[in-house]
């Protein structure tokens, strides 16, 4: 349990007696590269100063030099735990800017892929945190299933990790019947394993005691601090862009928005675990309703990319491909700017594109949920014990590549 916040003492020797502990940038519990400077009174954290930027690689600057289709390879590498969710978010904004309406098959496939990524992201978040807190089995079970999701990614796009699978107005490839059969197999066998993980996590007494009542984020703090996604929903902010601003096929699908009032680490994990079940429901429905037809939207001419098979097997397809990637033949977005967002596993992942009328962004701002959530960290950890740092950090699911971009 967190101790009462320490009384600010007027005794100057009090500050002298405090310890400074450097946590990171390389530490197993940070998972990625970030640094915390903790001020400790005994084992109680008095203050925490995050120091970030170790993975800053100028993604937003690169977004100004690459076109809407090329930048997807960079977007992939932001939250690399759920790369496809970033791709879908990026192209969602591009397509909104270009006013392209996706085909039904494409929206459903993207929905399925986005939910697979949500499962993968949540499994890693919960699994890795319980690993840090001493429970190894749940992590292994969770990783087994994530491996199967990677296999599905590989079968669909040729890449396990950085799939770069979406394109403006469509997807790189259509899925095969075999893939759909494999997906069906995944969602029928997943619940059994998931029950095990659920028991290993949410019924694990050590895990519960280390998470319950730790790092409490009140509803007001969540709103004032800009929290979104599972972090906000665990604090009683009942917002989910899938329900509130339906995009892709979410309007046609039936699912619940998981919320909690407690706002502590444990409820954040609970929300994530229950969201996995909702994601399974969504995938199941989307598979049953999956329409046929093309996966690329109807362009006004030849601006959208052709199918790869046509490019490699026909001269028309090859010409079409060249036309689609030549700057003077590409789609011309209006000279406008637009912010749009999707519900990524971690929260609201938004992009703000300023367009100067060409097929590349004049400014491609990312609104990364990790950055906003990590800014909340000092206020969550103050007054907690040193050992709680790992639990709070894990429950926020900070991905440093997205944090620093």
């Amino acid at each position: 349990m967190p101790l009462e916040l320490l009384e600010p003492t007027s005794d100057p020797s009090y500050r002298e007696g405090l310890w400074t502990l450097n946590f990171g940038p390389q530490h197993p519990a940070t998972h990625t590269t970030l640094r915390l400077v903790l001020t400790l009174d005994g084992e109680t954290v008095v203050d925490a100063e995050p120091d970030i930027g170790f993975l800053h690689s100028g993604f937003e600057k690169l977004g100004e030099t690459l076109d809407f289709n090329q930048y997807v390879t960079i977007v992939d590498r932001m939250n690399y735990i759920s790369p496809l969710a970033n791709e879908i978010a990026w192209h969602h904004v591009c397509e909104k800017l270009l006013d392209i309406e996706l085909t039904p098959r494409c929206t459903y496939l993207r929905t399925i892929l986005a939910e697979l990524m949500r499962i993968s992201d949540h499994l890693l978040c919960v699994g890795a945190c319980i690993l840090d807190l001493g429970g190894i089995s749940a992590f292994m079970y969770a990783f087994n299933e994530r491996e199967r999701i990677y296999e599905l990614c590989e079968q669909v796009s040729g890449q396990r990790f950085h799939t770069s699978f979406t394109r403006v107005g469509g997807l790189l490839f259509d899925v095969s019947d075999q893939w759909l059969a494999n997906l069906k197999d995944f969602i029928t066998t997943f619940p059994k394993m998931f029950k095990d993980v659920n028991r290993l996590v949410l019924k694990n007494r050590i895990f519960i005691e280390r998470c319950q009542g730790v790092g409490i984020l009140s509803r007001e703090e969540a709103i004032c601090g800009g929290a979104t996604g599972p972090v906000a929903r665990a604090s009683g902010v009942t917002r989910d862009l899938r329900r509130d601003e339906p995009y892709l096929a979410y309007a046609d699908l039936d699912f619940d928005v998981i919320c909690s009032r407690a706002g502590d680490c444990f409820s954040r994990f609970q929300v994530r675990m229950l969201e996995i079940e909702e994601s399974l429901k969504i995938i199941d429905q989307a598979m049953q309703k999956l329409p046929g037809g093309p996966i690329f939207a109807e362009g006004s001419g030849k601006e959208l990319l052709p199918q790869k098979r046509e490019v490699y097997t026909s001269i028309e397809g090859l010409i079409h491909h060249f036309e689609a990637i030549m700057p003077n033949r590409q789609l011309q977005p209006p000279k406008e700017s637009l912010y749009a967002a999707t519900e990524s596993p971690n929260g609201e992942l938004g992009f703000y594109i300023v367009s100067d009328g060409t097929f590349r962004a004049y400014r491609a701002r990312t609104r990364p949920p990790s950055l906003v959530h990590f800014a909340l960290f000092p206020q969550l950890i103050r007054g907690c014990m040193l050992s709680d740092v790992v639990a709070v950090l894990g429950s926020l699911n900070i991905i440093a590549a997205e944090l620093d971009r």
Partner: protein
Amino acid sequence: MMNSTEPQKIALEAALSAVPGPRAWSTFRDSLRLNIDAISLVPTMTRLREVGLNMLIDLTAVDLLEYADATDRYRMVYQLLDTESGARVEVRTHVNDPEPKLPTMTTLWSSANWMEREAYDMFGIVFTGHPNAKRLLLPDEFASFPLRKDYPVKGRGERHNFPVVTRSES
């Protein structure tokens, strides 16, 4: 066809009637944008927060140096969200060299803290009254603002600005 953002615009315009300064509304796709002068930023944002736009989703800058027909150098963009109704508003204001300076929003939203630091880090826009005004992502020795349009994508070495710490000194 009546624009879907029209009722929201009318309601917000009424709420902002007491706030001085020019206001220009515009709509693109389904997003409502409000353009204001930097001088009326604080009263406008305070009022918008009072009428329910309680979350600052995003805050960023755009360097308009190479943007056709732009009259100002930097645009600050604030994305506001009403967590109850789901309404969104984009607030824009412009600042210029040599001293791009704006009042901080950290007094209204704590989420502005790091995002303003990032905007300073990347664009050099100073936020007066910010509680912790230093670089966020880049090291303190970094001397330029890389997301400005006059900063090249590649070819600018920055290492000469960094102090060399030898093993014996460390």
